[in-house]
């Protein structure tokens, strides 16, 4: 049941519960259920913030009514939710996951149910944690304030928090559980390696000496190999790992290690004898001990409560009897009722034991209970994965099918978690080496008891073996497929009268059998011995041992590092090769002698490399467009397939908006374009050039002061004159006497006056673009005599000239006055008289010319209305800019001009 639905119902709009999990809030001995919901809030300006909402709830929460908000923990920068090893408790694999939640204000401990949902929850929370990128803003959590009032009273919470903190801080040193600070969220490997301190601490008050003993064996199953397998890079790490597995042979070599494998059915007895004859006599100190017991405790208590003092007794007995020539570290103990498996390694090997997991499978009563079944420990020794199974299969001679079934159940149900939770659980068969020991309970068939005993007496074990059920079942491929067993050279290990070497004399008088066996599967395994130990008489079984040399893949650190580096480098290389990259045919563009309204185009080609790429000219920081107004890139964005190319045209066009500043030197033909590749680098293109000043775009007064053609003047003079304020009064001191109107205006008007007063449709037909350029050049160079153009072209040039004036003939400041008195000629004349001299001159000059045209209206078909509508919008321009003029304003501007056309000055 997804309880996030219930949480969602309590949230405001715009907030979303990503995932919810039910857990136990632990305070001292108290356990209270809480629903933990991870809530996301999207911020208006982008980005998101997260908080953990903690709810009390009355049952499995289905709707919002089932939950009530207890407190909110914002996922701030100091927020952490980390898995910790439960201290002071027996660690049981598959038990709850204990997590500690810390912020600068509080510290809470929760137990979350074991499983993938919790794992997912922890991953989502980890993802929600704000990074440490200084560029991102600190979360502010303003959205939480509406919820705050529904939380517990602050004072109450304060005291609770205090208590929680104390209990957490006083309880244990959590740092212990993460050596080098690496046991962090997502490092799931560490919880498979319980520390010996934790294993038996439930009874540690009465058995402190015992605990100390275990401690002194300092098991430090280091996380050396772990660092490599930690999930720091997500997918990338997975790729690295798979490459490492592929190349394993490059950096590993096979080294033999000696394994001792022992199995002993102790018939519920406590240890009464020293176990050395079984575990260490007559052999060299093995590197690894795998010791299994069955029937450790036959009491009902052990069966029902899973609790037995025998565990410690036998553990101590084994620990005491390990080979005296070496020091051993206990790696793991796992027990299911009476089936116990112990794994020790020589201390110097502890650092190379990783990924330890242990599991149990019960196959007893109802096919599930623990009176029969198996336990297993899997681990990685250097680079070889090893699984050790201890099983106690169904009893009774005729029940071999049942035993086969138990074996199959153990194989299928024994599943180990993987470090990477996204991978399916490991099964026994997925290991390089499998060692299977136990009381497999297979009997000797078809022979009566006496015959069996006789064959044993004759030591005719080969003959006897022919009647062994395990042999026949394996031969029939009914069980232990692929496993090997060494030759049986010892007499059956079952059933003896306790305390003797005598065969069972009880009423049942069971036939002797090789119940206790050791089998293996895997490469590079050599069995050195396989024997029973008659000296031990505690049980009705005799213990069995087998010593192996097992070839383990050992990592050559040097080669490993090299291989890893190679892989990382090749991945980097691959990644870099996937960064789009293009080549540009040209990066510097020079536009020479740019003229007013003369389009110049420079083109270049973007050749794409091997990666599809999206390109775009991007704005430079703090700028509003990717290039200056007079420039345009076409296209300015696009997509390129691998190995394809595209031609980009840079179009330079100076118009009335940009001309003035180029004349004045406030702007230059200079720009840098940033060509940005999505996920790739930025290329800089530089644009340079020079602009030839023009009368187009020059202010009226500036032109009046230019007695010479603009192109004959030094650039410096053009600049100065262009920057000169409009209202400059002529003081006659430093400047030449200005002309009354711009000579360029006079040239065009004069030309029209001489050639075009009778021209039909003057100002109403478009000119020729090429002729405009000719007219512009004539005006700018003063070569008026050369001017020969179509009347319409000159008329259009005149209109363009008026349009390009940075300050219109009727100054912006006078615009509104003019509109106001557009019905009143006297007032209008009054307004005109207030214009700056040159503007006034130009206005009057133009009006006179237009009236001249009207005199010829019979020929040129012009009338006051046509001219007023053409010139109204050129002479009177709204200071508001190019916004669409209201019809009324337009009309008034025409009316204003109209008056001057109708009335003689």
């Amino acid at each position, binding site marked *: 049941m997804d309880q996030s639905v219930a949480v969602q119902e309590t949230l405001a709009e715009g907030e979303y519960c990503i995932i919810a999990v039910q857990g136990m809030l632990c305070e001292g001995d108290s356990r209270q259920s809480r629903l933990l919901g991870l809530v996301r809030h999207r911020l208006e300006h982008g980005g998101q913030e997260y908080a953990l909402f903690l709810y009390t709830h009355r049952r499995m929460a289905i709707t919002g009514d089932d939950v009530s908000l207890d407190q909110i923990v914002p996922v701030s920068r100091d927020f952490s939710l980390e898995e910790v090893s439960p201290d002071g408790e027996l660690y049981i694999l598959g038990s709850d996951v204990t997590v500690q939640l810390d912020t600068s204000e509080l510290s809470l401990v929760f137990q979350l149910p074991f499983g993938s949902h919790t794992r997912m929850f922890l991953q989502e929370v980890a993802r929600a944690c704000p990074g440490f990128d200084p560029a991102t803003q600190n979360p502010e959590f303003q959205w939480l304030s509406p919820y705050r009032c529904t939380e517990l009273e602050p004072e109450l919470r304060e005291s609770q928090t205090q208590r929680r903190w104390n209990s957490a801080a006083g309880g244990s040193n959590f740092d212990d559980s993460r050596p080098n600070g690496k046991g962090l969220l997502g490092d799931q490997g560490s919880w498979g390696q319980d520390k010996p301190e934790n294993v038996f601490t439930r009874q540690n008050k009465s058995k402190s000496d015992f605990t100390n003993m275990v401690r002194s064996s300092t098991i430090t199953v280091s996380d050396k190999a772990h660092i490599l397998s930690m999930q*720091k890079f997500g997918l990338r790490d997975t790729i690295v790992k798979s490459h490492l597995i592929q190349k394993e042979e490059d950096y590993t070599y096979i080294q033999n290690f000696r394994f001792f494998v022992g199995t002993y059915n102790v018939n519920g007895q406590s240890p009464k004898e020293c176990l050395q004859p079984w575990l260490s006599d007559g052999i060299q100190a093995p590197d690894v001990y795998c010791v299994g017991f069955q029937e450790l405790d036959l009491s009902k208590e052990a069966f029902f409560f899973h609790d037995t003092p025998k565990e410690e007794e036998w553990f101590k007995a084994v620990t005491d009897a390990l080979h005296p020539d070496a020091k051993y570290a206990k790696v793991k103990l796992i027990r299911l009722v009476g089936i116990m498996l112990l794994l020790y390694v020589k201390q110097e090997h502890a650092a190379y034991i990783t990924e330890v997991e242990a599991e149990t499978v019960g196959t007893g009563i109802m096919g599930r209970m623990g009176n029969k079944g198996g336990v297993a420990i899997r681990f990685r020794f250097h680079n070889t994965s090893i699984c050790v199974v201890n099983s106690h299969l169904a009893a009774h001679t005729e029940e071999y099918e049942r035993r086969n079934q138990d074996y199959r159940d153990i194989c299928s149900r024994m599943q180990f978690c993987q470090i990477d939770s996204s991978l399916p659980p490991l099964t026994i068969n997925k290991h390089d080496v499998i060692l299977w020991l136990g009381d497999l309970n297979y009997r000797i068939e078809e022979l009566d008891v006496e015959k069996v005993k006789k064959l044993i007496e004759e030591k005719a074990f080969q003959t006897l073996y022919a009647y062994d059920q395990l042999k026949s079942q394996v031969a029939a491929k009914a069980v232990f497929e692929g496993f090997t067993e060494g030759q049986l050279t010892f007499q059956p290990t079952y059933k003896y009268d306790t305390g003797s070497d005598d065969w069972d004399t009880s009423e049942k008088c069971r036939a002797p059998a090789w119940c206790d066996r050791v089998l293996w599967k895997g490469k590079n395994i050599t069995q050195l011995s396989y024997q029973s130990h008659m000296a031990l008489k505690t049980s009705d079984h005799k213990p069995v041992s087998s010593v192996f040399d097992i070839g383990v893949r050992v990592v050559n650190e040097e080669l490993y590092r090299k291989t890893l580096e190679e892989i990382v480098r090749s991945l*980097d290389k691959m990644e870099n090769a996937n960064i789009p990259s293009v080549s540009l045919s040209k990066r510097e563009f020079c536009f020479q002698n740019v003229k007013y309204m003369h389009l110049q185009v420079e083109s270049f080609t973007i050749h794409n490399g091997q990666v599809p790429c999206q390109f775009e000219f991007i704005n430079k*920081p*703090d700028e509003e467009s990717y290039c200056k107004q007079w420039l345009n890139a076409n296209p300015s964005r696009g997509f390129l397939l691998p190995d394809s190319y595209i031609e980009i045209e840079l179009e330079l066009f100076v118009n009335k908006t940009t001309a003035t500043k180029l004349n004045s030197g406030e702007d230059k033909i200079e720009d*840098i374009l940033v060509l940005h590749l999505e996920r790739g680098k930025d290329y800089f293109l530089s644009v340079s050039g020079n602009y030839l000043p023009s009368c187009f775009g020059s202010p009226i007064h500036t032109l009046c002061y230019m007695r010479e053609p603009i192109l004959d003047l030094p650039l410096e003079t053009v600049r100065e004159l262009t920057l000169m304020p409009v209202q400059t009064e002529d003081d006659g001191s430093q400047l030449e006497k200005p002309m009354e109107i711009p000579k360029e205006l006079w040239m065009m008007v004069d030309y029209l006056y001489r050639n075009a007063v009778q021209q039909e449709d003057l100002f109403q037909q478009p000119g020729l673009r090429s002729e405009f350029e000719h007219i512009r050049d004539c005006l700018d160079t003063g070569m008026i005599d050369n001017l020969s153009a179509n009347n319409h072209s000159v008329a259009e040039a005149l209109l363009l000239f008026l349009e390009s004036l940075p300050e219109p003939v009727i100054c912006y400041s006078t615009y509104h006055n003019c509109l106001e008195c557009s019905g009143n000629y006297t007032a209008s004349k009054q307004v005109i008289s207030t214009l700056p001299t040159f503007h006034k001159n130009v206005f009057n000059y133009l009006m006179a010319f237009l009236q001249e045209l009207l005199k010829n209206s019979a020929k040129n078909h012009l009338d006051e209305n046509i001219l007023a509508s053409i010139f109204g919008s050129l002479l009177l321009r709204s200071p508001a800019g190019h916004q669409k003029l209201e019809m009324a304003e337009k009309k008034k501007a025409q009316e204003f001009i109209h008056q001057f056309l109708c009335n003689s000055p």
Partner: protein
Amino acid sequence: MKTIEVDGIKVRIQIWDTAGQERYQTITKQYYRRAQGIFLVYDISSERSYQHIMKWVSDVDEYAPEGVQKILIGNKADEEQKRQVGREQGQQLAKEYGMDFYETSACTNLNIKESFTRLTELVLQAHRKELDGLQTRASNELALAELEEDEGKPEGPANSSKTCWC
């Protein structure tokens, strides 16, 4: 992108090579903001590039985030016969600005790895507090910008070096 290991921590560094040409400076300056570590590179065979370092340093101080880590690099150390800037000069300048100094050669692979590792170390140290956090993050990306002062070639030897040793 490059992955290197520092103190057992895998660090992914993103390297930007900014154009060294003066005319692009107004733009490249804006790129400093996202850098955590910066190489200031001059060419030992160019006195002029060495002189420019002062300008780079002041730009970096002005535009790069506070606490950005810097290392001074004298590149083209293989071109001994063309040397115009002495080793001591480099050391002296580095000392003045409190920077580490390496002479490197992209061609002979001299000190390339060392200088990258060192700068990464410095950046990690500067972010020591966040280090624990860094380990939990899915990826640790540090951005190292590289200032290339190389006589008007925006794609300087640092670029060619990448093909040499990456």
